[in-house]
């Protein structure tokens, strides 16, 4: 059977009432958490992990993927109307989007963001359908040296490209790597670095680490320096569609954003956030009206919003075909796979075709739902933003406890969660980005496994790590990811004495 037949079967399975319900629930929840500050898609998927005990795998992944897609839509709404991105992938949108809203063009900004997300999400999902099986076939030939190089690339891109200080990004990554060392050694099965505590023998749970880093850390940080003035909301009229003039200015940025976002999502290159920066830079460069940038250029909303959604679709490719998560949300989805006893990787498409294709079809449907939900309902999402902050953050803490307790089943797990939350507070306070820590924790053990396998097979010869062209390419890119920002910083410093 060809991919097309499989996809049609997937659509048949995705159009059942049960699948549709899970997709709708997923995109609703995703948009909600995208709109709300302090709680994002990673945390939401972590919170929903207990459903893996009671619903079939396909339904669970439809729900999770809906949350992931929906989070990107929701983030743009707050960026535009509040100048405060709900998600880090929407920071760029706030630049132009909020200016547009202040000029009374909020409706158009919302529409170009939603339509751009839709276009990019749909193209991205179709690209998954086309590319993923090909990539799975090719991935079978990858060696452990190749995997190791890929992980190293992911490390370098997340730590160097996020945040203002690359050194602090690497430090954050190493915090995650150190946390990832805790637990049983995967080869010899002996406990390492457990501080003699029985609870740590199985390592730091990914869910606890992610919820602690994101939700608890954020809440403590907000508690320590809360803004008491109410957020400044730009009023907006109801939107249905884009005026012709704006559509003309938007469609090219949508496509360019997709072209930038998808490949960078597939490569472990820092996830959706980096792509929005790149897309913005490209649009600014190509624009016929560069003077409008910074004052509300629609291209600066259309491009990055398409890019982050395309990147989310791209992130699913390595997750499904290599078992390699490149963002925090993907990593938590990976732990959901393992709770079903499913091993994502090159063989997933052969072993679980029904699951994969239903998931892909559901993503297409979820995208349509998101468009319908977001265009006319933007006003309702904005109302949700007016939840008083004390209640919002109290609720986030309660949800954090809920997710962590449901996954660890012990109060000691909650104390670990609190400890990680305090650490995350300190990191935020001093400008250490927290995402690299989560990525390090998740990918660290994968890096170690593949490093050791490579060396074992090659009698300990370190040259084996650069033994394949693919590994060489990945490591070269990793080097670039570290060096280029340093050069750019040095040049910027020279300009401003």
């Amino acid at each position, binding site marked *: 059977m060809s991919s097309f037949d499989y996809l049609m079967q997937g659509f048949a399975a995705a159009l059942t009432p049960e699948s549709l319900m899970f997709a709708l629930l997923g995109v609703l929840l995703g948009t909600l958490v995208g709109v709300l*500050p302090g709680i994002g898609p990673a945390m939401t998927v972590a919170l929903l992990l*207990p*459903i893996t*005990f*009671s619903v079939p795998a396909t339904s669970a992944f439809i729900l999770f993927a809906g949350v992931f897609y929906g989070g990107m839509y929701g983030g743009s709404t*707050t960026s535009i109307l509040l100048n*405060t*991105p709900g998600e880090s992938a929407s920071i760029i949108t706030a630049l132009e989007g909020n200016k547009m809203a202040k000029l009374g063009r909020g409706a158009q900004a919302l529409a170009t963001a939603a339509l751009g997300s839709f276009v990019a999400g749909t193209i991205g999902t179709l690209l998954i359908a086309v590319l993923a099986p090909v990539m799975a076939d090719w991935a079978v030939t990858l060696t452990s040296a190749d995997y190791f190089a890929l992980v190293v690339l992911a490390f370098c891109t997340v730590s160097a490209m996020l945040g203002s200080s690359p050194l602090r990004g690497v*430090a954050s990554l*190493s915090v995650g*790597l*150190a946390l990832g*060392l805790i637990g049983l*050694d995967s*080869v*010899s099965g*002996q406990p*390492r*670095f457990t501080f003699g505590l029985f609870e740590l023998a199985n390592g730091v749970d990914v869910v606890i680490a992610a919820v602690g880093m994101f939700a*608890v850390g*954020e809440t*403590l*940080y907000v*508690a*320590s*320096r*809360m*803004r*008491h003035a109410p957020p400044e909301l730009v009023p907006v009229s109801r939107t249905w569609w884009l005026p012709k003039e704006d559509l003309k200015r938007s469609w090219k940025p949508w496509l360019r954003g997709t072209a930038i976002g998808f490949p960078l999502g597939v490569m472990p290159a820092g996830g959706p956030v980096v792509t929005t920066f790149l897309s913005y830079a490209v649009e600014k460069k190509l624009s016929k009206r560069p003077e409008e940038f910074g004052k509300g250029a629609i291209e600066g909303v259309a491009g990055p919003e398409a890019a982050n959604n395309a990147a989310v679709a791209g992130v699913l490719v390595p997750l499904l075909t290599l078992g390699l998560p490149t963002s925090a949300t993907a990593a938590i989805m990976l732990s959901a796979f393992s709770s079903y006893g499913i091993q994502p990787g090159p063989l997933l498409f052969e072993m679980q075709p029904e699951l994969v294709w239903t998931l892909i079809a559901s993503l297409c449907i979820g995208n349509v739902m998101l468009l319908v939900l977001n265009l006319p309902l933007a006003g309702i999402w904005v109302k949700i933003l007016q939840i008083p*902050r*004390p*209640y919002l*953050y*109290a*609720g986030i*803490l*309660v949800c954090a*406890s*809920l997710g962590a*307790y*449901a996954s660890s*089943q012990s*109060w000691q797990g*909650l*104390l670990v969660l*609190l400890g990680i939350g305090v650490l995350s*507070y*300190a*990191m*935020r*306070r*001093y*400008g250490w*980005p927290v995402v690299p820590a989560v990525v390090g924790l998740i990918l660290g053990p994968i890096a170690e496994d593949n*490093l*050791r396998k490579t*060396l*074992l097979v090659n*009698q*300990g010869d370190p040259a084996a790590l650069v033994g394949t062209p693919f590994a060489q390419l990945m490591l070269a890119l990793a080097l670039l990811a570290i060096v280029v920002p340093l050069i750019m910083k040095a040049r910027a410093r020279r300009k401003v004495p």
Partner: protein
Amino acid sequence: MVRRFSGELVLVALLAAAGVYVLVQTPEIVVPRSAATAGPRLFPYLIGGLLVGLAVLLAVQVLRGRSAPPEEGEDVDVDRRTDWRAMLVVIVLFAAHALLIEPIGWPLAATVLFAGTAAVLGARRWLVVLASSFGLAIGLWAVFVFGLGAYLPGGPFQMWT
């Protein structure tokens, strides 16, 4: 060139301490004979070295007065002074919540956590605080226990299950 002590040094010291701990503990790992070339000690040594090296570099940066701006957020006022009281109360509340889950059940422990946190962060309409904290706690508990089949100790509500 006397600069104010930066709290970031505490974070850096923690990083160094983690690195030293890893380096000191690594020789304790038993290396099976089959894993002579790339055993369970290799990666920890690399990470331990990385941690210590980074701590040194960061310490130099911090002492020379180069710091990164604190993270921005929509509910965060970066220019405010740290409110230690609010933060400590939230930490204590969360720890108390963790210890209370088994004796009094998740719904009541979560009510304490929600009401306490909301009050510390500035909620003052006590009736609303109490009603919403208990309502949310019992609602979430019911959804997770009955809807998702998760296990959460119910305390006095355990008899409903």
